[in-house]
């Protein structure tokens, strides 16, 4: 086993508080929901398992046997992705989902092509397939279409929400502050703005800056 502190990205001897904080962040980072539509989901699962083990080890041996509360093993039922939670699928839909999940794209595409009636579930599955393959533009269009056709289906809405939150999550990630300082006003424009404001005040009889 690797050094559990190293796994959590900490120095040996970090306090329990630090361990908990690092653990929470890592769980968020490698959460199975975040990797649901990603071809590397199995690797993320493995990573999370390693993190859980490291955390358990530290808590058991350093923090007097406290149990981890925040993230119990419930993810093991969750990680199987979209299969478990929605049981009303027809056999065809189920088969295609499994194929997509296992990365068998050609066969999934063949089955999808063979379906004549293109209802919302077809758009949904084709969207998922494109998402996994890396065809994000079409995936987005198709998933939106599926939700439009059946707005009350939680599964479709979930998928679309995942796409949107991934997009916004990265675009507004805490490390990137957008154009930030590049757009902030420089000294020159601050002075001109003040000068304008002062002139305007003077027009109305008041004064913003007394000396001019």
């Amino acid at each position: 086993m690797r050094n559990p502190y190293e796994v959590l990205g900490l120095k040996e001897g970090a306090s329990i508080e630090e361990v908990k904080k690092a653990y929470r962040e890592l769980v968020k980072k490698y959460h199975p929901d975040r990797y649901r539509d990603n071809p590397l989901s199995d690797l993320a699962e493995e990573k999370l398992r390693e993190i859980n083990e490291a955390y358990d080890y530290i808590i058991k041996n350093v923090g007097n046997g406290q149990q981890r509360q925040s993230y119990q093993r419930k993810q093991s039922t969750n990680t199987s992705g979209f299969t478990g939670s929605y049981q009303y699928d027809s056999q065809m839909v189920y088969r295609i989902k499994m194929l997509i999940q296992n990365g068998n794209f050609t066969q999934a595409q063949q089955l999808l092509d063979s379906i004549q009636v293109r209802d919302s579930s077809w758009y949904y599955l084709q969207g998922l397939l494109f998402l996994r393959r890396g065809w994000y533009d079409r995936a987005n269009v198709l998933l939106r279409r599926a939700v439009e056709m059946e707005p009350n289906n939680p599964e479709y809405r979930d998928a679309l929400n995942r796409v949107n939150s991934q997009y916004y999550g990265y675009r507004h990630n805490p490390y990137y502050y957008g154009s930030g300082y590049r757009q902030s006003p420089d000294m020159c424009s601050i002075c001109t703005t003040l000068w304008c404001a002062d002139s305007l005040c003077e027009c109305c009889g008041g004064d913003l800056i007394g000396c001019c």
Partner: protein
Amino acid sequence: MFGYITPDKPELKIKEFEIFRGYYCGVCRAIAKQAGHRGRFVLSYDSAFLALLLDSLNSAPVSGKPGRCLIHPLKKRFMVDYGDVLEFSSDINILLAYYNLKDKWQDEKKFFSPLGLLALRRGYKRVKKKYPVLVGDIEKGLSTLHELERSRCGQMDEASEPFAGIMQKVFEYPAEPDSVKKILGWIGYNLGKWIYLLDAYDDIEDNIKRGAYNPLVIQFRYGENENVESFRERIKKEVEFILVYSLSEMEKAFSLLDAKKNKGILENIIYRGLLEKTRQVLEMGAGCDEKPL
């Protein structure tokens, strides 16, 4: 390679900047070694990034020393030592630059292309011999790309697929074991997609003027009477979605990579530099004039 992959410089530590430049210089020297000094003009940031990324998997500290070079003879600069990683990155740089020049010559008859091709010829032949399988894959990808161009493919996803596939093959080539191969491949795939589409967006005006192929112009039905500026504005949101989504997928893959060094610089590029470049190109068409560091 297009030189879009750059760090967000103001946010780098000075030390990190010097290390990044050290890789850049290292690749440049490696190119000179393989293709002669005349080959150096093809140097690109993208291959410096490739070297930085691949080297981050080795746990040994960055090895290099200050030195002078032909182009900057006055000041000593930190340069990363020649090794497997630099060799591979510079070979890829030569290879892709060669194909790029060939393309430009065939499509646009750019005057300088034959000169460049001539300078690169020797290096290209050597590289081709070194990686026969990889070069075969790349050439197959390029011929698919040309076919899609000829048939005027009007779908962003489809049009960017061959180049993304090429980058996937390139990134996963030197990696071991399979799990790392998969991660690096997915980084390459999504970066390739991003590069191809960002370049397409960047070239809209030029391509419209010359009547050259551009997948975005076809997909979003550019009308003859339409103002180029308003066209760019009209399609911005949709293009931004696919660009940023590709980057977000790449970020996920990167999170799974066990980088042992260069982490600060890589994170700077992945969380800031690439987003900043996307913003620049979308907002003002920053171009990709590569200024040497």
